[in-house]
């Protein structure tokens, strides 16, 4: 460090020439606040002389001193003469970005940090570690070559460690550095470290890391982060920074064949037609034959154009513009390959998908897929299984909620060129975009292509919901409509006295269902009495007709695939039985919202009881008209003594038991 400062002072040109040769390493850090992740990054920046004076000053102003503040003198940066000792600074604050997060004391998003040493420039994607931030971690990992995974030495390998390691391996990172942190709190005990290292290696054997190193560290005191530790002479390996400076990543991508997704057709004038893009794998030479996917037309490379002049050859990851010998139709979204080593091409593929949307991934629902430079519509045909991020166990699944990972089969509306992600992440990855909100809702990694005429797929076309073939040959069935929504339709029929809590409960239920991604509709007095049934009075005949119509509308909605919730007093057994009779047995769930008359009358939300008692309203249920309680409702809820939340829980439990509710898993 000192030598470097001296070189900068004495010969800046020599320094700049050396710096120009530096390469770049992108890495991710995984762990939670409790593991000391921010402290580790802060330590890396600080001890490698990458913290600016004014940032340090700003920190001093904003940081809350830790209860056990750093030992004075323990923190002395390599170039930190000019800086006051970091004794009162929480180094974690160097990396905690947004105001709101700083207030909450957590890291909720991916933050990027930059630092350099004499050998390399580094980009850190700093990711939060809790399970609800699985998607953020995958985001940060997607552009990284190496992962630092933190383990608290006092706790060892936890399900969190397994989750982080799994996500990191899922996105194809091959270099893992396991920082066993807080060694100072276990007396720098070698045995503790060795036990954790053995546990971890056993667990990680199947994860596909080609390069795995465990390092005992204390981020708080700087041991083995930048400098080797004096407290742990038993550890002979490299510090974290030494690993970062020396790891070799240029051979991580296995595919050697040319892949050139066309980004932009450059036509500045009539005599020039170039195809601009980045070579994502392999290389291209002037005169090479190329094939265009998906059209499979072929030509030869006429020139490789860059602003610095024409090239005889170019390699990944260089951006270039290619011109071809022949005038063939090529547009953005196409891919140029070598004819002898083409990419896969097709509409069907198996992939692992990490779901990021608030609404779950539902098979059959159309999404927009983006792979390479192409956008294409398609669906997830089926979810083969879901993978538990903590245990890596496989479970059957009907849908994927946020932060869940599943192995799925995709069906795209037009053929795309692709490679298995394992061989080539840039041509084997895709994102899923919600066609309505335009939000990015999923990330996928292609495992393999599937032939369209494979027998298993033909079978799926005959039965499954994907069937853009079948749609033209027969009527869409009730089951298919429901299948597209990924749910079992039904009527949840709430009956009970005025003031018993039907509307409150119905609204809470609809909201809970909507949050789980269900398609619902709530029928109540407000939207029925004012429109469809405004011609009906409150006589017995009017009431019966009212309920009959509501029953028919609810039936149509069930037919359309919806979960219908109704909230009407519906006092008579016979009319409720009538509704039950027009739908299938398992589609009518009668829920008796039972509250004593005194309770309802005391609540009297609309003042109706008062007016009935005063004689302003005649034939009011419970006062001068009878209520016939159900004999065998699917559920009876006593709202007199329990909260809305408790009632809602019973309702959801009923729907869960009937296989209607989408669970969290």
């Amino acid at each position, binding site marked *: 460090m000192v030598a470097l400062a001296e070189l900068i002072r004495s010969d*800046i040109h020599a320094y700049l020439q050396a710096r120009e040769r530096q*390469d770049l390493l992108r890495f991710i850090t995984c762990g939670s606040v409790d593991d000391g992740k921010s402290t580790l990054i802060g330590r890396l920046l600080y001890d490698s002389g990458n913290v600016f004076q004014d940032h340090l000053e700003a920190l001093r102003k904003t940081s809350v001193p830790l209860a056990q503040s750093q030992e004075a003198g323990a923190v002395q940066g390599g170039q930190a003469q000019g800086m006051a000792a970091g004794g009162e600074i929480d180094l974690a604050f160097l990396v905690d970005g947004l105001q709101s997060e700083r207030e909450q004391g957590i890291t909720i998003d991916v933050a990027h940090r930059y630092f350099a040493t004499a050998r390399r420039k580094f980009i850190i994607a700093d990711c939060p570690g809790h399970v609800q931030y699985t998607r953020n971690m995958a985001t940060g990992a997607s552009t990284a070559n190496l992962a630092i995974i933190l383990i608290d030495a006092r706790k060892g390998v936890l399900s969190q460690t397994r989750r982080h390691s799994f996500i990191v391996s899922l996105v194809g990172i091959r270099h893992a550095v396991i920082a066993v942190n807080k060694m100072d709190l276990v007396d720098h005990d070698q045995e503790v470290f060795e036990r954790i290292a053995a546990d971890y290696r056993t667990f990680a054997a199947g994860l596909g890391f080609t390069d795995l190193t465990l390092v005992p560290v204390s981020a708080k005191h700087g041991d083995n982060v930048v400098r080797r530790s004096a407290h742990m002479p038993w550890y002979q390996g490299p510090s974290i920074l030494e690993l970062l400076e020396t790891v070799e990543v240029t*051979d991580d991508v296995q595919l050697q064949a040319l892949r050139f997704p066309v980004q932009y057709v450059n036509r500045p004038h009539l005599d*020039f037609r170039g195809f601009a893009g980045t070579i994502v794998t392999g290389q291209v030479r002037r005169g090479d034959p190329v094939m265009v996917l998906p059209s499979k037309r072929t030509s030869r490379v006429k020139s490789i154009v860059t602003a610095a002049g024409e090239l005889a050859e170019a390699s*990944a990851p260089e951006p270039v513009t290619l011109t071809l010998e022949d005038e063939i139709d090529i547009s953005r979204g196409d891919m140029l390959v070598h004819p002898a080593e083409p990419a896969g091409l097709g509409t069907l593929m198996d992939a692992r998908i990490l779901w990021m949307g608030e609404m779950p991934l539902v098979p059959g629902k159309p999404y927009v897929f983006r792979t390479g430079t192409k956008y294409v519509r398609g669906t997830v045909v089926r979810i083969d299984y879901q993978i538990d991020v903590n245990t890596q166990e496989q479970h059957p699944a009907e849908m994927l909620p946020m932060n869940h990972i599943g192995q799925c089969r995709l069906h795209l509306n037009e053929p795309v060129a692709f490679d298995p992600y394992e061989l080539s992440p840039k041509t084997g990855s895709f994102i899923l975009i919600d066609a309505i909100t335009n939000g*990015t809702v999923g990330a996928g990694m292609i495992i393999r292509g599937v032939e369209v005429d494979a027998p298993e797929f033909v079978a799926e076309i005959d039965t499954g919901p994907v069937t853009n073939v079948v749609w033209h040959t027969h009527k869409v069935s009730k089951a298919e409509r429901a299948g597209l929504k990924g749910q079992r339709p039904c009527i949840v029929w709430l009956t009970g006295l005025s003031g018993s809590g039907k509307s409150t409960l119905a609204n809470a239920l609809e909201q809970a269902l909507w949050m789980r991604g269900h398609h619902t509709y709530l029928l109540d007095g407000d939207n029925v009495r004012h429109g469809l049934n405004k011609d009906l009075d409150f006589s017995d005949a009017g009431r019966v007709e009212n309920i009959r119509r509501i029953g028919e509308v609810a039936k149509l909605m069930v037919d359309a695939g919806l979960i219908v919730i109704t909230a009407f007093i519906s006092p008579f057994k016979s009319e409720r039985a009538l509704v039950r009779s027009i739908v299938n047995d398992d589609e009518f769930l009668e829920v008796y919202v039972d509250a004593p008359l005194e309770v309802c009358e005391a609540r009297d939300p609309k003042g109706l009881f008062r007016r009935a008692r005063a004689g302003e309203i005649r034939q009011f249920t419970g006062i001068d008209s009878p209520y016939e309680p159900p004999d065998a409702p699917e559920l009876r809820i006593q709202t007199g003594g329990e909260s809305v939340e408790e009632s809602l829980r019973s309702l959801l439990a009923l729907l869960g038991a009937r296989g209607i509710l989408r669970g969290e898993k």
Partner: protein
Amino acid sequence: MKRLTHLQQLEAESIHILREVAAEFERPVMLYSIGKDSSVMLHLAMKAFHPGKPPFPLMHIDTTWKFREMIEFRDHETRRLGLDLIVYTNQEGLRAGINPFDHGSRKHTDVMKTEALKQALDKYRFDAAFGGARRDEEASRAKERIYSFRDRHHRWDPKNQRPELWNLYNGRINKGESIRVFPLSNWTELDVWHYIHVENIPVVPLYFAKERPVVERDGVLIMVDDNRMRLHPGEQPRMEMVRFRTLGCYPLTGAMQSTARTVPEILQEMLLAHTSERVGRVIDHDGAGSMEQKKREGYF
């Protein structure tokens, strides 16, 4: 995979982003602030679309308080490169006489920069705007995406950003919404200067040390660039050897004492100084977390 240097890798990533946006959006524009980052961004755009020109115009939001040398440089560069330039000023703000002296940096920036930018984006119906911001500049920038989504009111919602995986940017928007794009997201200040050095990119001469007339205000050296500068009673501009680390409105931009007259000398000074560049920007000091607040409101 070929081993590229870090500058080559950063360049490749930026060119990829520039081409993506040009291909995906109907009406992109490059926000050209005339500073060093804009110079680098423009240079990258020239490379990305060679042998053609960048298929989008440049736009400068002119608060009318920029250094004179910036305006000269802007006009000279765009003429030299043969590019379309839109210059936009908030006319209401101008008529109301908004200025940094009477209204303070916060109000002046709100009206003449943030508001002006929103007006211009609406007027020309741009659906994508390139900016030269870098993630290393400031904490709230560190979490911003490369494609940063803005709603109809140009607002940024840091809690609701689209996940950005691999280099698969999601450019889908509805009518009236837009994307701010930051091709230099992963560059640091040092990278920018080093690249300027390696590629020999022209920058505004104000970045190089020279004797300039300055006054000292609250410990900040302010250059007296024209006779609109309000001098305090008895205050006399004095000649100092100074340069600027960032450029903006001259009454709001602090100069630093320096003797660095070349790019390598600037790099040398930076490497030995250990102060980050935004210190020279008065608007960052309006309060803790002030940049995040400005960005939510639509500031670039």
